[in-house]
């Protein structure tokens, strides 16, 4: 006697053009039962749900791939770890151990980097907000600031005079590259001559040492050619400064912005097809750097502030199904225990999500809701998903960037974050919050 077929929840679906594929037995999702060899079930048992998990192996592999493809094409390359994408100590340390400098945009991040043992001279300080109190501390320590506007330039000069120092600085420039929205709010504009004015101001003030140019083109840039254009404009500018003013720059910083394997909401093809490889970015940038009119021994260092593309692929979020629902329009809905307060990037991405255990049954259009009592709490817009049971786990992939820095403590505790080592050990690198932690900074008003 043949064994009985397995029980599935009964289902009937009307055939509609454009949706047909979904009903045939062409199914295409594999469960992710293990992360780097560690069973999801074991992680759930040890740390609870929901849970962020990072793969040290992927962090290191991505870092080395980035370093290698650029070093192959250009001799002097420096990667500065972009703290804002993920500044958990353990994550940052993985990159610092690989040789990364730090790229920070606030005093908090600077302190965090210093606390991890990063020398002040190995920190690039970006951003439009560097008040005098900050410059008073970081400039004498030797940190390289990327000046964003003329007011900051004036403050930096004042600090130089007051402290009797000659700080090394870069200027941030903005420029147009076809197909990329211009981030004109940051830095000095190149095309209208403002960037040149800033350089002349630094030279005539004679208090600061101009050592670098920085241009962060934008974010999640899927077209490597945009970098070819921005790097070419920076190289032309550097050549001009060298020829006209005799300035020899020690670095050219092309910023960050490389896309991870995530998929933006307004993206037709998924990240695994649309995202360029690191070598295609490297090809575009090094082509442009080849036009530098510098003697070989004085070639400036290429600085990369890649954040998202290094850490996004290494991060996972495990969540647990709390309920199944059928919406009036026929769609299935799953309610899971991680909401947009935890998975903040749900606002931007069509996250890649798969079940964490073997499954059976018909794939259906399914929407994933978080646990918040708020209409915006959608962690994944409708996707084809198999039926799951209450208590089953799902794994969101490519969620390592920005979530554990931009998440919100809202109505509940933020989950733990775990790192899996290259040999399969695992440890919490940030413990789950509890009442003590959240109440910590609070003080009862004395009259209550």
């Amino acid at each position: 006697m043949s064994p009985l077929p397995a029980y599935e929840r009964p289902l009937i679906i009307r055939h509609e053009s454009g949706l047909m594929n979904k009903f045939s037995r062409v199914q295409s999702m594999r469960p992710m039962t293990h992360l780097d060899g560690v069973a999801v079930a074991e992680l759930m048992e040890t740390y609870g749900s929901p849970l962020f998990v990072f793969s040290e192996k992927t962090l290191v592999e991505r870092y080395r791939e980035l370093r290698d493809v650029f070093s192959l094409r250009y001799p002097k390359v420096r990667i500065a770890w972009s703290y804002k994408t993920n500044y958990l100590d353990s994550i940052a340390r993985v990159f610092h151990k690989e040789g990364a400098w730090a790229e920070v945009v606030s005093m908090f991040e600077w302190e965090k980097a210093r606390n991890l043992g990063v020398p002040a001279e190995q920190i690039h300080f970006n951003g439009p907000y560097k008040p005098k109190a900050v410059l008073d501390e970081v400039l004498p320590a030797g940190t390289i600031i990327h000046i964003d506007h003329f007011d900051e330039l004036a403050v930096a000069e004042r600090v130089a005079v007051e402290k009797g120092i000659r700080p090394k600085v870069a200027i941030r420039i903005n420029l147009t590259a076809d197909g990329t929205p211009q981030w004109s709010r940051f830095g000095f504009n190149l095309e209208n001559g403002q960037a040149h004015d800033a350089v002349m101001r630094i030279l005539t003030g004679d208090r600061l040492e101009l050592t670098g140019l920085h241009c962060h083109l934008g974010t999640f840039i899927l077209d490597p050619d945009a970098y070819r254009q921005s790097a070419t404009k920076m190289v032309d500018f550097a050549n001009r400064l060298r020829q006209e003013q005799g300035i020899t720059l020690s670095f050219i910083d092309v910023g960050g912005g490389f896309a991870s394997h995530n998929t933006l909401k307004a993206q037709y093809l998924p990240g695994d097809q649309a995202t360029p490889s690191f070598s295609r970015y490297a090809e575009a940038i090094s082509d442009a750097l080849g036009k530098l009119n510098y003697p070989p021994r004085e070639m400036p260092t290429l600085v990369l502030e890649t954040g998202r593309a290094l850490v996004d692929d290494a991060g996972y979020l495990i969540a647990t199904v709390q309920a199944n629902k059928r919406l009036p329009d026929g769609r299935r809905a799953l309610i899971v225990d991680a909401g947009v307060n935890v998975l903040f990037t749900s606002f931007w991405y069509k996250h890649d999500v798969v079940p964490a255990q073997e499954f059976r049954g018909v794939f259906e259009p399914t929407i994933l809701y978080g646990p918040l009592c708020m209409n915006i709490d959608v962690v994944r817009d409708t996707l084809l998903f198999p039926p799951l049971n209450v208590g089953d786990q799902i794994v969101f992939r490519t969620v390592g960037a920005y979530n554990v820095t931009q998440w919100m403590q809202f109505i509940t505790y933020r989950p733990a974050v775990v790192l899996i080592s290259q040999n399969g050990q695992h440890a919490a690198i940030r413990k789950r919050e509890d009442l003590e932690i959240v109440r910590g900074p609070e003080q009862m008003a004395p009259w209550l």
Partner: protein
Amino acid sequence: MSSFNSTIAVTGLNATDNPGPGVAVIRSLRADPEFHGRIIGLAYDSLEPGIYAADLADDVFLIPYPSQGSEALAARLTEIQKRAGLDVVIPTLDAELPLFISLEAQLADMKVGTFLPTRDQLDLRSKAHLAALRGKVEIPVPATKVINDASELYEIHREISYPFFLKGLYYGAYRATSVDEAVHAFHRVVAQWGLPVIVQEEVRGDELDVVAVGDGRGGLVGAVAMRKTFLTDKGKGWAGIAIHDPVLMRLTEQLMGALRWRGPCEVEVVATKDGGYHLLEVNPRFPAWVYLSAGAGINLPSAVARLAAGHEVKPMRDYRVGTMFVRISLDQIASLEDFERITTYGELRRSAGSAQ
């Protein structure tokens, strides 16, 4: 050409009012008297019209949409290979090319041949980069601008004057004569094809098209030039005629050289009244009217199938100028049983053949 006995899979059976090229590619293969192999249709939706034409595909399989990722497609093609014994795959839709290109090596390991451009070649001719071809080809390229935000449309008339076209990265083109129309078109394009959106200057004149196959080393395998003689309200060519146009052929050869293009493509050009030519698009696949190439005496789909199977193909230059095509819409009678099989099992086997 010599006798040819392979199992060839072709996508794009969506012969709708905005037709995919699959049906035309299959008809061309069938028109090759030396072809004695089998044809497998690969469809995304169980109502793609080409599925139901019994004389086109021997077998039809559903495949997952590109948005489901490369792992899904690879798994499905592996299964189809096992069941039906594929030798060659010819993808025919823009949006699936990045995926098939990324699977090229994997398919080769499975002994499934393809004849595709590289990812860099694909990007070089993308609508977003067309302007970069200026200087590499002799004819002008209309002003284009890639935008990611509808607000850019309020300033765009400083660079590109109305009317202009808004195009999706893969498909879709809307003409706009005002900011309001442009913003509306922007959102339509984004809703269907995502960002970015390409704004392209309108150039008026006769639409000329070339279907060409590049050998991947900078050479041209063969090409047929055509003038559209009848356009639908969507701007699709519903009739056309093969023409002799040395300028167009030289342009096509230059493009194959500049891009080192490998595989089929469609070169769209506008000829203005003053005799000038403007390059509108280079599409990375066969056009839906490619059956004209077989009709005019140089069967380009068959050439690509042979190249993908690893055969030599000699350059093909002479075709019958004046060969016309006039497209027809007709209603096929389809059986509910066929529909049931494709919806329920994701496949329709008309042939008895299989790998085993």
